[in-house]
C-alpha cells in the first residue's frame, strides 16, 4: 500500500505503537474503535483484516461509510456471543480504563482472540507519583477540568495492569512505551516509572 504523506500527522501515537505488533493477514477485532482510525491504519499499513465494535452509533455509522466492518455494541455486554478463537488479535486502545467490567472484558477477549493488545495511561509514571506525593491529589493525566470529568474512570499503573493480566490467565509477551522501544515483561519497573502511555501485548499462559 502506498503511504499517504499528509496522514502522518493524523495518526495517534498509541495506534502506531500498537500497529508494530500486528502481522499481515491477521484478523483483528478493535474494541472501542471510535471512528475507525486504527482499523484503517492496520489495513493499509499492516495488511490486517479488521472488524470493529463501538458503543457510540455516530462512530459506527462513520466507520461503515468508510467501508469498515463495524457494529454498534457494548464490550461490557456483547462479547459473550463471539465464538472461541474467532480472531488473531483483539485490541483495547485506550478503552480498558473506561470499562465497567475490565476483568470480564479481558477474560472474554482472551477467549475470542489468541492475542490481546491493550493501550492505556500509566498512572505509575514518576510525575504522577511525585505530584501525588507533593500535592496529595491524584494527578489528572487527561485534559479534563477535574478527576470527576476525566475520561479515565479507572486510573491504574503498569503493575496494576500486569496484575489484571495475570488474574485473567495472561502473560505479558511484550510491552512498550508509546514513545519507546518494546521490552519484555521483566522490565516493568522501569516502564512503570518512565512511560506515560503503555502498550501491552498479552498472550494466554502455558
Amino acid at each position, binding site marked *: 500500500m502506498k503511504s499517504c504523506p499528509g496522514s502522518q500527522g493524523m495518526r495517534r501515537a498509541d495506534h502506531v505503537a500498537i500497529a508494530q505488533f500486528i502481522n499481515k493477514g491477521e484478523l483483528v477485532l478493535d474494541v472501542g474503535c471510535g471512528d475507525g482510525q486504527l482499523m484503517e491504519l492496520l489495513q493499509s499499513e499492516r495488511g490486517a483484516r479488521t*472488524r470493529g465494535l463501538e458503543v457510540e*452509533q455516530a462512530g*459506527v*455509522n462513520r*466507520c*461503515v*461509510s*468508510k*467501508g*469498515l*466492518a*463495524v*457494529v*454498534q*455494541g457494548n464490550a461490557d455486554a*456483547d462479547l459473550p*456471543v*463471539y*465464538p472461541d478463537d*474467532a480472531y488473531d488479535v483483539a485490541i483495547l486502545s485506550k478503552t480498558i480504563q473506561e470499562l465497567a467490567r475490565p476483568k470480564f472484558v479481558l477474560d472474554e477477549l482472551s477467549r475470542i482472540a489468541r492475542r490481546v493488545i491493550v493501550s492505556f495511561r500509566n498512572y505509575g509514571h514518576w510525575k504522577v507519583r511525585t505530584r501525588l506525593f507533593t500535592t496529595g491529589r491524584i494527578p489528572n493525566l487527561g485534559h479534563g477540568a477535574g478527576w470527576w470529568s476525566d475520561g479515565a474512570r479507572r486510573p491504574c499503573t503498569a503493575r496494576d495492569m500486569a496484575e489484571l493480566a495475570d488474574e485473567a490467565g495472561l502473560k505479558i509477551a511484550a510491552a512498550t512505551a508509546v514513545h519507546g522501544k518494546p521490552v519484555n515483561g521483566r522490565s516493568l519497573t522501569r516502564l512503570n516509572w518512565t512511560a506515560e502511555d503503555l502498550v501491552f501485548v498479552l498472550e494466554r499462559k502455558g
Partner: protein
Amino acid sequence: MIAPARTLSGADGLKRLSVATPAQPLRLDSGRTLDHVEIAYETWGTLDAEKSNVVVVCHALTMDQFAASPNPVTNRPAWWPSVIGSGKPIDTDRFFVICSNVLGGCMGSTGPASRKPDGSYWGTDFPIITIADMVRAQIALLDQLGIQNIFLAIGGSIGGMQVLEWTIQARDRVFAAIPIAVAPRQSAQNIGFYEVGRQAIMADPNWRGGRYLDEGTRPDRGLAVARMAAHITYVSESSLKQKFDRRLQDRQTKTFGFDADFQIESYLRHQGQVFVDRFDANSYLYITRAMDYFDLPNEHGGVLANAFRGLATRFCVFSFSSDWHYTPEEARDLVRALNAAGCETSYVSIDTDKGHDAFLLDEPEYEAALLGFIDAAASARGLPKRKQP
C-alpha cells in the same frame, strides 16, 4: 381503474420467465408443489462478462419489481430512486440490478390472482407460501437467466427477510447482503396487526370466500381497511403528530358525525383507496401470512446463529430508531447472531422520526453508509471502482 392482477395475460408488457414446470415443479415448505410458476422481473444496468456484478433487490409487501423505473401498469414512479440509479449507492453504471415480483404477488408473478392451468383463478386454492418459497422461486429465476453468483442481495422489511433467506439458501453464492428494517422472526405484534388486515378483507362480503375474481366482485373496502391499519405501523407516533396532530380536515369544527373530521383519518382513507387500485386482496393475505411464518431461529434449532454459521457472506444490517414495526432491538438480535456465527458484519442504526418507512426515504446518513459498505464490498470483490462525480 382496473387492478392489474385482473388483466394479466402476458399482453401487459411485463417481463416474465417460467421457473417451474410439471417436469420441474417448485417444492413448497407446506409440502405442496406448484407445476406452473412464472416470475415477473425487471433489470437495470449491464451484466459484465464474468457475471460478477449482479445485485438482487428484494421488494417489500406492497411493492413490485419496479424499484428503479416507473411501473407501466400502474404508472407509479420507481419506489427506490434514492438508492438505485446512475451514481446512486446501487450504481446502475456498475451493477446489473434485478428485482422480481414475489411468488404470490400481483404484478405478473404467479399468485392467487393468476389463472390455474384450467383457466379459473387460483384465489384461496393457491397454496400457502413462505419467505423461503419466494426465494426458491427467485433463485430459479436467476438460474433461468444463467446467473450463478450474486454480488449483493438487498431489501427492506419483508425484502430484508428475503435477503436473509437468500444468504442461507444460496450458500456462498451471495457475496454481500444488506437486510434493512427487518427482524429474524415476525413479532407477535406484527402478526396481530396483519391478522386485523386479513380479517378486514375476509369480512368484506365481496371477498366471496376468496373467489371474487371468478365472481366478478372486489373486496375493496376490506383491503382498504387492511392497508389503513398496516400503514399506521409504518410511521411513527411523532411523525403523525408532526404531520397531522389533531388538525381538522377542510373544516373549522367537529361535525358530530363519522365523516373524516381529522386530517389523519382523511390521510389513511386516501392511503386505503389508492392501494386497492393496484393490489390484489388475496395476494395481501398470502404475503402477510408468509411474513407471519418467518422465524429463522425456530428453523435452526432455536439458535439464530446456526442459520449463518460458516457463511462467507459479508453483512450490513440497517435499522431506524423510530421503527416500531421492526425495531432496532430486533436488528441487534440479528447482528449478535451474525457475530456469534463469525460472519463479517456491520450494523448501522439511523436516527430518524420517520418510522419503518424511513428505509424508502432520503436520509443522507443512510445513503452514505450504504455507499460506503457497497463500495468496500465491490472493491473486495474486485469490481471496477465507482466513477467519481
